[in-house]
C-alpha cells in the first residue's frame, strides 16, 4: 500500500473500493463483450438482412430468411436430423460411459491413473484427426470395421458408415465420451463408500446396491454429462463435416455451407442463430428440470 492511499480521505477510499470489482473484471469483461456479445449481436442482425445472387448483402430489415427456414421442410429435416443424432449420441455415451466411470472408480492407484489417461488422452488430439481415424476405419465397403464385423459373423453384408447417421453417431459418441465419463466419475467420487456397505449390511445384493443405491446417486452426474454431450453433439462441426460431408448435412455444416459456398451469409446467420436458440432452450430447460428434481435430495 502506498503512502498516498493510506492518507486518502475516507469517502474517496470507499468510492474506489466500490469501483474495484468493475476495474478488476474490466479486461475479461471487455474481451467477453468484444469477442462474444458483439459478434453475436451482429450475427442476429445479419440474419434479418437481404441477400441476392448479384446484389450481395443488403443491410435492410426483412424476415425473408426466417420465413424460408420456417416454411421449407428442407430445414426442418436438417434440424430434426441434428437433434436426432445428438440424442442418440447422448444415449450411447450414457449407456457406455456410466459403467466405464464405475469401473474406473473401482480401479486401484496406478491402474486408475493409467486408464484415466487413456480416457482423457483423445481430448489432447485434434477432433479432426480423431474423426479422420474413424473415416479410415469406416472407409467404404472394405473398411476395417466392416471386415471385422463380418469376420465375427455379426453382419453378413457390409454396413454403410460413411455419409450416414450411423457413422456420425458412432464417431461423435467416441469423440464426446470423455465428457460423460468425467461427469459421472465426479459424481461417483462424492459417494460415501460406507453407504454401499450400509446397504449390503441391510441385506442388499450387488445388483440391488447398484440399482437402488449407486445409480440414483450418480443420476445427477449422468444428467449433467448428458446435457454437455447433447450440446456438443448438436453443435459439432468437424465430425459431421468429415463423416457426413456434403451429402448428409446437419445444422452446423448447413450454416457453414451457406456462409462459405453459397455465400448467402444472412441465411447462414439465421440457421446459426436458430441452432443457438434451440440449444440454449433445451440445455437451460433440461438443467432446470434436473435442478428441481434433485434440489430437495442433494441441495
Amino acid at each position, binding site marked *: 500500500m502506498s503512502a498516498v492511499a493510506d492518507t486518502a480521505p475516507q469517502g474517496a477510499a470507499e468510492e474506489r473500493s466500490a469501483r474495484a470489482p468493475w476495474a478488476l473484471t474490466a479486461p475479461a469483461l471487455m474481451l467477453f463483450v468484444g469477442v462474444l456479445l458483439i459478434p453475436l449481436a451482429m450475427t442476429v442482425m445479419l440474419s434479418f438482412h437481404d441477400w441476392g445472387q448479384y446484389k450481395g448483402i443488403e443491410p435492410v430489415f426483412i424476415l425473408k430468411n426466417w420465413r424460408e427456414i420456417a416454411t421449407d421442410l428442407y430445414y426442418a429435416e436438417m434440424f430434426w436430423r441434428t437433434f436426432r443424432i445428438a440424442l442418440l449420441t447422448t444415449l450411447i455415451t450414457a449407456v457406455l460411459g456410466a459403467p466405464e466411470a464405475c469401473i474406473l472408480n473401482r480401479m486401484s492407484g496406478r491402474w486408475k491413473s493409467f486408464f484415466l489417461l487413456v480416457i482423457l488422452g483423445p481430448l489432447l488430439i485434434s477432433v479432426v484427426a480423431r474423426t479422420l481415424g474413424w473415416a479410415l476405419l469406416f472407409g467404404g465397403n472394405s473398411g476395417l470395421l466392416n471386415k471385422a464385423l463380418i469376420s465375427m459373423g455379426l453382419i453378413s453384408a457390409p454396413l454403410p458408415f460413411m455419409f450416414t447417421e450411423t457413422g456420425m453417431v458412432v464417431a461423435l459418441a467416441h469423440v464426446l465420451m470423455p465428457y460423460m465419463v468425467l461427469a459421472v466419475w465426479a459424481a461417483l467420487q462424492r459417494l460415501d463408500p460406507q*453407504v454401499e*456397505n450400509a446397504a449390503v*449390511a441391510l441385506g*442388499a445384493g450387488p445388483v440391488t446396491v447398484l440399482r*437402488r443405491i449407486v445409480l440414483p446417486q450418480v443420476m445427477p452426474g449422468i444428467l449433467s454429462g448428458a446435457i454437455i454431450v447433447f450440446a456438443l453433439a448438436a453443435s459439432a462441426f468437424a465430425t459431421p463435416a468429415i463423416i457426413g460431408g456434403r451429402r448428409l448435412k446437419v445444422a452446423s455444416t448447413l450454416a457453414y455451407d451457406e456462409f462459405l459456398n453459397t455465400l448467402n451469409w444472412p441465411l447462414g446467420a439465421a440457421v446459426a442463430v436458430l441452432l443457438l436458440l434451440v440449444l440454449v432452450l433445451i440445455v437451460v430447460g433440461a438443467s432446470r428440470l434436473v435442478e428441481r428434481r434433485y434440489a430437495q435430495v*442433494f441441495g
Partner: protein
Amino acid sequence: MAYLELDQVGKQFGAQTVVDDFSLAVGKGEFISFLGPSGCGKTTTLQMVAGFLDPTRGAIRLEGRDLIAVHPARRGLGIVFQSYALFPHMTAAENVAFGLEMRKVPRTERAERVRSALAMVGLVGYEDRHPRRMSGGQQQRVALARALVIRPSVLLLDEPLSNLDAKLREDMQIELRQIQRTLGTTTILVTHDQNEAMSLSDRIVVMSQGRIEQIGTPQETYERPASAFVSQFLGKTNDFAATIDRSAASARLVAGSWSAAAPAGFTGPVTISVRPERIGFGDAGLAAKIVTRIFQGNYWLFQCESECGPAIVIRQNDGQPQPAEGEAVRLAWRPEDTSLRAGVAE
C-alpha cells in the same frame, strides 16, 4: 455359552498386524465397548464382525455358528456408521424401510414397523424428510432406527456419536442406553471416548496397538487398570515411583514421605497409580506444593509439584476452605486407593 464369540482373531494388512489375538465372549443382551486411541484396531475388529473385512486368523461365531462363512448381506447385523451412511436419495422412512424390503416384509407390516422404529428414536413427523434436510442428531437417529428395525442379532456402532456436539452427545448416550436396555439387543460400540464407553457399556475392551489391554466392567477398568496404558487412557491418574522397603519388621511401600504396609508379591522399584479424586490434603503424606488451582464449578483442580514429580488433585467443591496456590501441603490417600505395578513409570 457365549452369544457372540471372537476366538483369537487376527488381521494383517501386508506385513502390518492391525489386530492380534483378539478373544472375547459376548453374552446375549450385553453392551460391549471397544475403547482405544485411533489406530488401535477397534474399527478393524468391528468390520470383521460386520463382514466387510475377513480376518487373517481366528474364528468369529454367533450362537455357535461360524460367522465368517456368512456373506455380510446375510449376517443380519445392524450397523450404525460414523458417517451415518444414510441413503441421501431416500426419505427417512424409505431409509428405515430398506432393510425390511430386502427381507420381503409385507407392505402393511413394513409401514407399521417403520413407524414404530421412527417413533422409538423420537422422529415422528420426519418420515418424508431427506437426510440432507435433517440435523446431525436427527440423521443419527434415522441411522439407529434403520439398524434396529430389522431386529438385528447384534447391533454394531462405529463411533456413532463422534460427529455430534457435546450436549447432544450426552442426550444421545442416555437415549441409546435406554433403547438398548428396552430391546435387549446385544451391542458392540467402537469409541475413543472413555466417558462414552464408561457410561454406556456393561463391559469395556480397552485396546492398544491391535491388542486387548484389559476386558472388564467400567468400574474394574477404572479402579483396577491392568496396565499403565489403561490407567492413563481411562481418566486422569497420578503415577508415582515407589519402593518396597523390607528393612523393617513389616515391609513398607514408600513413595517420598508417604508410606503404607506393602502388599505381598512385589519387590524392588514399583509404580503406584492414584486417581486424583482419591487424594486428599492431610497432616502427613507426600510433601507437595500447589502450583495452580483451577475452579471448575463442582470441583477444584490442583496441579502440584510433589517429591515424586507432578501430581493432580481433584477436590469436591463441598464448601470447605481449599489451600491456595503456592501453599505447601501433604498429599494423603488410603492404601486401597492405589494400584500397584512392577517397574518404574516412564
